C-alpha cells in the first residue's frame, strides 16, 4: 500500500469497513510512514464527530474516562419533567428579560417619585417659555434666573454684602 492508497482508506479504516488483509496492510504502511501516520492522527481527532456512530446508533452507552475512573455518560434528561436544554435556555432568556424589565420599572418608578416629591420648582424652562410677562420678568431677577432651582441653591449677587465675596472683587 502506498501513501495515496493509504490516505484514501482513512474513513474505511475508522469505520472498520476494510477486509482484514487490507486493514493489516494499512496499519503496516502507517507504521513505516511518519507522514501518513501523522495525517491519520490529525484525522483521528475529528473523526469521532464525523465518522463514528452517533449516540442514536450506539444507544448512548459511551463512557467518559478520566484518570482511573470509568463513568458511563448518563442520559442528561432523566425524568422528563423539568424544561431542559434549548427550552431551558429559552426560559433563561425570558427570565433575564423579566429581571431587566423589573429593574427598569423600579428605577423609573423611583425616579418619578423623587421627581414629584421634590420641593424645588419644576419645569422652569417651560414656564419661562410659556409664562406671562410678569413671570418672565421674575426670571430675570437674581433669585429667579433659570438654573437656580436646578442647582438647588440661592443665587446671590456676588457684590452684595451677604455674599462675602467683595474682597475677591476688590482687586
Amino acid at each position, binding site marked *: 500500500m502506498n501513501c495515496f492508497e493509504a490516505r484514501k482508506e482513512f474513513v474505511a*479504516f475508522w469505520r472498520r469497513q476494510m477486509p482484514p488483509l487490507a486493514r493489516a496492510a494499512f496499519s503496516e504502511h502507517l507504521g513505516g510512514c511518519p507522514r501518513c501516520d501523522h495525517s491519520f492522527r490529525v484525522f*483521528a481527532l475529528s473523526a*469521532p464527530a464525523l465518522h*463514528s456512530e452517533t449516540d442514536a446508533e450506539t444507544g448512548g452507552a459511551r463512557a467518559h474516562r478520566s484518570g482511573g475512573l470509568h463513568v458511563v455518560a448518563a442520559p442528561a434528561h432523566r425524568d422528563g419533567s423539568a424544561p431542559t436544554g434549548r427550552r431551558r435556555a429559552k426560559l433563561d432568556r425570558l427570565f433575564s428579560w423579566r429581571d431587566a424589565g423589573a429593574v427598569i420599572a423600579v428605577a423609573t418608578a423611583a425616579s418619578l417619585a423623587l421627581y414629584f416629591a421634590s420641593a424645588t420648582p419644576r419645569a422652569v424652562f417651560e414656564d419661562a417659555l410659556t409664562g406671562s410677562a410678569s413671570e418672565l420678568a421674575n426670571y430675570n431677577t437674581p433669585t429667579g434666573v433659570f438654573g437656580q432651582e436646578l442647582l438647588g441653591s440661592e443665587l446671590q449677587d456676588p457684590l452684595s454684602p451677604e455674599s462675602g465675596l467683595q474682597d475677591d472683587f476688590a482687586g
Partner: protein
Amino acid sequence: MLALATRMGLGSQAVRTDEELIAEVLAGQTAAFAELASRYRDKVDRLCQRFFSDREMVRDLAQESFIRAFAGLSTYRAEMPFGGWLRAVVANVCYDELRRRQRKPEELVADFAAAEYNWVQLVSEATPEEIVGAAEQRQEAHDLAHRLLDALRPEDRTIMILKETEELSVSEIAQTMGWSEAKVKIRAFRARQVMRKHAERILAARRAQAVR
C-alpha cells in the same frame, strides 16, 4: 374472516408509502404524520447528533424539525424522496441553530478537560487500531471532535457534516441548503483546512508538553 380482513388492513397500512401518508396528512388526517415521523425519527436524531453533541439540544432540534416539516408539508413535491426533503429541513434547522448561537471559534488548546487531554495523549501515542477501538468507547473523543467542529463557521460546519456523514455530493449539498456549488466547494476546502490546522495545533501542543 373479519380478523383476516383486519390483518390485511393492517398489512396494507404497514406498506403505505411516504407519499400516501403525506397525502393523508394533507387531506386532514394529521395522525398519519406520526407514522411518517416514526419512520424517520432515527435518521433525524442521527443527523442532529452530527451537528450537536448535547442530547437535550438534539432532542429539541429533532422535534423542531418535525414541527417544521409538518408545517411545511404542503410545499413538499414528490419529485424528490421525502427522506431527502426531510433531511434538508433538518439540516436547515440545525444550521439556523448554529447561526443563532453564533459561536466564535474557540481556543481549543487552552481549555482541555483532563479526559480530553488523555484522549489527545492516546491519539499521539497509540497505534491506529488502538485509537479506533478507544474512540468508540470514549465520550471525550466525541466531545473534542465536536469542539473541532465548533471552530468552523456555521456554513462550513454544515457542509462538512453533510459531506462527510451524509456523504452528499457538492450539488446535493447545494440543493439541500440553497447555496451555489462554488460556495459549497470553497467552504468545504476551507473547512478542512481549518479543522486540520486546529488538530495540528492540538497535537503540537501535546508534543511540546511531552518534551518538557
